[in-house]
């Protein structure tokens, strides 16, 4: 799975996610990616999310919208992501990761899986990582 979130100079926000799915999946299996609120969500008033991970777990907890619910209640993108990923792990034993932005341009790349390659560009700086703590 690959995904992106962005805020432009007008303050507009968008998300995109694309995937080949799960390895050796059943024919016709569809995961979270094309499901709004699960495989992505964007709202100028709150922020945007693009997730990856256990698709069925992401669908059960509606991960993208759950993160934005936490942000609506005042959590930062990082806090909201960690809360939602922890909930997904606890409730449905699902692992995954997300990239998130808010309307001010605050961003986060968080994951409960072992790895998630990510990169962010802002103010002429490129940030990137793959493992926890990077």
């Amino acid at each position, binding site marked *: 799975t690959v995904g992106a979130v962005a805020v432009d100079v007008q303050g507009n926000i968008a998300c*995109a996610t694309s995937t080949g799915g799960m390895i050796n999946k059943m024919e016709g299996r569809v995961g979270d990616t094309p499901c709004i609120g699960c495989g992505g969500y964007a709202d100028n008033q709150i922020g945007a999310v693009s997730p990856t991970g256990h*698709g069925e777990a992401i669908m059960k907890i509606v991960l993208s919208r759950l993160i934005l619910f936490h942000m609506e209640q005042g959590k930062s993108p990082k806090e909201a992501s960690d809360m939602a990923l922890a909930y997904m792990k606890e409730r449905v034993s699902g692992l995954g990761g997300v990239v998130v932005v808010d309307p001010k341009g605050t961003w986060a*790349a968080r994951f409960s899986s072992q790895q998630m390659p990510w990169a962010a560009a802002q103010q002429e700086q490129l940030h990137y990582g793959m493992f926890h703590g990077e």
Partner: protein
Amino acid sequence: MLPVVVVHGGAGHVPKERAELSIAGMQEAARLGYAILKSGGTAMDAVVETVAMLENNPAFNAGRGSVLNLKGEVEMDALVMDGRTLACGAVSAVRRVANPIHLARLVMDKTSHVCLTAEGASQFARAMGIPEVPEESLITDYARKRWKDNLHKDANPVECQIGKMG
């Protein structure tokens, strides 16, 4: 407003020998998205073109390089959403399209629907003038090897998915 783009390349395990390719692909995609934003492009343009670049990069499991289903075929899903209007578009189980993310954007821009699936999505792609690509062009040696490694003659199609991520 300070523009920003953030990208990810999936939460699955990245073998050591593919880690550098993966990070390089992330950097390249973030640079592209940021260049679009810096030149006045919209957030929608930035995320779609960034994801299209990643779909074209065989280091990632989307577009070219997609994992294979049990039958050894490629079925892809994609979604876009515009935070300004809450417009959104998606495709699922789509085949023989190089960039499903472009098709998802067309669903958003050109139809009153949110998601088109399978053969309906393919018909829509043809109607929109998106060229069909050979399935083989989307399949990498690495994807085929993983498919074979995970394919067991008597595998239960549900059990063989446990523990794997999309």
